[in-house]
C-alpha cells in the first residue's frame, strides 16, 4: 500500500523539544483550568481569519513580556518549576499511556495489523525475506538509511518553507495529511475492527460514522474545539499512524529505524545547525508558537488581550498558517506564554506580573513522540505475545519521559524527547524478550515466586 501522503507527513515530523520562551516571562499569561466550564466559550485554539486581534495581541505583548522578564527572580521560578514539574509529567503520562493502550489493544485483538503479506512502504524497499542473517541485517540498515534520509530531506524542506514564510503550502499539506488520517485510515481501522468481531455493517452507517468522526476531527484539530476532544483526536491519530508503521515496517527495519531516529532527533535538536533547532529559533525570533495544532498540548494558556490593531493583518497571516502543522516533531515545550485571547478583547487591561507566577504553564509534546513510543510498545506486543515485554517497555518509556522532563526543567531549553525513552525502551525490549522471558516462564511453570 502506498501511503505516500501520510508517510510524507510522517516523515516531516521531527523529534525535538523546543523551549518557547525563557522561563522568566510569565507576565502576560493567565492560564485557566481547562476543566473549568466557563472558559469554554472563550477558548480559542487556533489562528484563523477572525483571530487577528488575538494574534495582534500576541505580537503586541511579546515585547512587554520581555521587558518584564528582568524583575522576576530565578529562585521563585525554580520553585514553580519543581512544583508544577510533577503535574506536568502526569499530564504527559496520561496521553502517552492512552495512546499506547489503544495501540496495544488493537494489536492484540485485530490481527490485521500484525499480518505481514509482503506489502511494504516505498520508503523501505528492501525486503527482509532473505536467506541469511547478514543479508537481512544489511537490508534493514539500508531501509533505515532510506527512511531517515527521507525524513531529513522533508525536515529541511519544511524548515525552508517555514523560513520563507510559505505558510499556505504548509497549511495545505497538513490539511491533506490530516484528512487522510482522519478519514481513510480510520475507515480502514473501523473496517478491520468490524471484521475481527464479525459485526454486520452497512455502508450508509459507516459513511455517517466516518464523516462525523473526520469532520469533527478536522475542526477540532485545525480550528477550535474543546481541549479534551482535541487531545483525544490527537491521541487517536497518533495511534492510527503508529499502527500503520507497525504493520508496514519490516521487523528488523523497525527496530533499527527506532534507534536511528532517536539519534537523528538528538542531532537535529541539539546541534546548532540542526533543522529542528533552526525551526525552533526561527519561531522564537518571530515570537510565534511552534506548530500548535499538531503538538499535543496539555493545557491552554490565556492572556488578557492587549489588542494592537496595527499589527492585526501581519500577525493573522503569520499565525494562520503555522498552526496546522501535522508534525511528527517531538517537541516538548515548556509552554511559557502561548497567547490565547479572550473573546472580550476590547479591553486593554494591563497585566501585573505577580498574578501569573502562580499559574500553571502546561507542557507540550510533539505527536512524533507519541507515534514512536507507541510503535515501540506496539511492536513489543506484536512479536511474541508476551505481556511482560510490553509492560517492561511501557515502564521504560514512561521513565524515559520523566527523565526527559526533568532535564527540561533543569536546562530550560529545547530538548529531544525520543532518545532517552527509546533507548530505555529498546534496552528493556531486547533484554526482557531474551533474558527475562525464559526466566519468568520457568518460574511460572513451577509456580516459584520471587
Amino acid at each position: 500500500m502506498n501511503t505516500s501522503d501520510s508517510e510524507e507527513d510522517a516523515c516531516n515530523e521531527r523529534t525535538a523539544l523546543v523551549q518557547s520562551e525563557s522561563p522568566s516571562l510569565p507576565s502576560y499569561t493567565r492560564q485557566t483550568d481547562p476543566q473549568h466550564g466557563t472558559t469554554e466559550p472563550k477558548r480559542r485554539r487556533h489562528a484563523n481569519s477572525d483571530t487577528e486581534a488575538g494574534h495582534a495581541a500576541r505580537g503586541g505583548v511579546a515585547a512587554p513580556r520581555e521587558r518584564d522578564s528582568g524583575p522576576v527572580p530565578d529562585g521563585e521560578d525554580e520553585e514553580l518549576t519543581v512544583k508544577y514539574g510533577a503535574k506536568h509529567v502526569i499530564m504527559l503520562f496520561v496521553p502517552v499511556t492512552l495512546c499506547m493502550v489503544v495501540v496495544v489493544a488493537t494489536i492484540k485483538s485485530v490481527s490485521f495489523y500484525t499480518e505481514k503479506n509482503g506489502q511494504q512502504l516505498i520508503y523501505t524497499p528492501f525486503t527482509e525475506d532473505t536467506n541469511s542473517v547478514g543479508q537481512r541485517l544489511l537490508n534493514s540498515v539500508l531501509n533505515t538509511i532510506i527512511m531517515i534520509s527521507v525524513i531529513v530531506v522533508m525536515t529541511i524542506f519544511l524548515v525552508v518553507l517555514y523560513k520563507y514564510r510559505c505558510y499556505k503550502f504548509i497549511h495545505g499539506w497538513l490539511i491533506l495529511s490530516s484528512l487522510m488520517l482522519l478519514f481513510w485510515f480510520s475507515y480502514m481501522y473501523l473496517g478491520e475492527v468490524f471484521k475481527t468481531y464479525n459485526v454486520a455493517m452497512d455502508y450508509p452507517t459507516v459513511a455517517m460514522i466516518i464523516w462525523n468522526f473526520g469532520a469533527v476531527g478536522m475542526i477540532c484539530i485545525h480550528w477550535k474545539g474543546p481541549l479534551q476532544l482535541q487531545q483525544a483526536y490527537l491521541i487517536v491519530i497518533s495511534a492510527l499512524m503508529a499502527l500503520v508503521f507497525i504493520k508496514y515496517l519490516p521487523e528488523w527495519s523497525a527496530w533499527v529505524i527506532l534507534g536511528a531516529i532517536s539519534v537523528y532527533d538528538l542531532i537535529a535538536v541539539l546541534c546548532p545547525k540542526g533543522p529542528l533547532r533552526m525551526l525552533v529559533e526561527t519561531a522564537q525570533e518571530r515570537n510565534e508558537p511552534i506548530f500548535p495544532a499538531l503538538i499535543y498540548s496539555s493545557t491552554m494558556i490565556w492572556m488578557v488581550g492587549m489588542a494592537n490593531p496595527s499589527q492585526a493583518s501581519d500577525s493573522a497571516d503569520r499565525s494562520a498558517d503555522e498552526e496546522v502543522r501535522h508534525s511528527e516533531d517531538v517537541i516538548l515545550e515548556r509552554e511559557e506564554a502561548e497567547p490565547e485571547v479572550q473573546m472580550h478583547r476590547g479591553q486593554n487591561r494591563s497585566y501585573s506580573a505577580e498574578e501569573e507566577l502562580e499559574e500553571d504553564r502546561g507542557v507540550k509534546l510533539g505527536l512524533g513522540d507519541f507515534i514512536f513510543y507507541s510503535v515501540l510498545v506496539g511492536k513489543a506486543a506484536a512479536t511474541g505475545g508476551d505481556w511482560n515485554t510490553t509492560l517492561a517497555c511501557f515502564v521504560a518509556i514512561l521513565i524515559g519521559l520523566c527523565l526527559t522532563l526533568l532535564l527540561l526543567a533543569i536546562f530550560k531549553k529545547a530538548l529531544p524527547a525520543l532518545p532517552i525513552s527509546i533507548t530505555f525502551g529498546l534496552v528493556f525490549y531486547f533484554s526482557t524478550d531474551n533474558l527475562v522471558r525464559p526466566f519468568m516462564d520457568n518460574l511460572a511453570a513451577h509456580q516459584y515466586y520471587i
Partner: protein
Amino acid sequence: MTAAVFFGCAFIAFGPAFSLFIFTIARDPLRVIILIAGAFFWLLSLLLSSLVWFIAMKASNAEDTKVQTGLLIFGVFFSVLLQEVFRFAYYRLLRKANEGLAAISDEETSPISVQQMAYVAGLGFGIISGAFSMINILSDTLGPGTVGIFGDSQYYFITSALMTLAITLLQIFWGVVFFDGCEKSRWWVIAVVVCLHLLVSGLSLLNPLYEGSLPPVYAITVLMAVWAFFASGGSLHNLSLLFTRKILFVLQLICFVKM
C-alpha cells in the same frame, strides 16, 4: 477456560493493589512518579538477575534437569537478594530527592514524607512484581485449554492469583518496614526483611504442595501487616480512636436520621 476464571483471578490478584492505587496514589502526581520509578527499579533488579541466571543456564548442561532446577532455585534466591539491594538503592535515591524537594519547596519541608514514599515504593514493587507473575497466566485463562491435563494441579490459576496477591501485599509491607529500618539505622530490621523475603520465596518452592506454601505465606503477610502498621506510626490507641470515632459517627448519623 472461562471468563469467570479470568475475572476472578484478575480481581484476586490485582484488586487490592488497584484500589490502593486509585484511592491513594492516583490523585497525587508525585506519588505516581515514585510508583513508576519503583516499578522501574524492580524491573532493573529482575533484568540483572535474569541475566545472571541466563548465563549460568547457558554455561551448564541443558539436558540435565536436576542442574537446571537447581539453577532456577539459585536464580530465585539471587533475584530476591537483588530486589532487596535495589530497594535499598531506591531508598537512597528517594532520600536524596526528598532533600532536594524540601530545599526547593515553600515551607522548607518536602511535600511528601519518607513513610509515604516507603508505602508508594513498596506498592510500586508490588504492582510490577504481581503483574510480571500474573499477567501471562491471566492471558492464558482467556484462551482454550484444560487445566492440569498432564497431571498437574487443578488449582493452578487460583493459587497463582492468591500467591500474587500475597506477594503484592508483602512488597508493600516490606517497603514500609525496610525504609523505616533504614531511617532509624536499624540494620537488623533490614536483615529480617531480607530473610522473610527469602523465606516466602522458599515456601513458594514447595508448590504444588499448596498447603505448605499458601497458609504460611498468608500468615507472614498478616504478621508483616501488623509490623508495618506499627512501624509507620500506628498504635493500638490510634486504632481504638478510629473505632470510637466510627461508632460516634454512626451514632450521630442514626440520631440525625431519626430526627
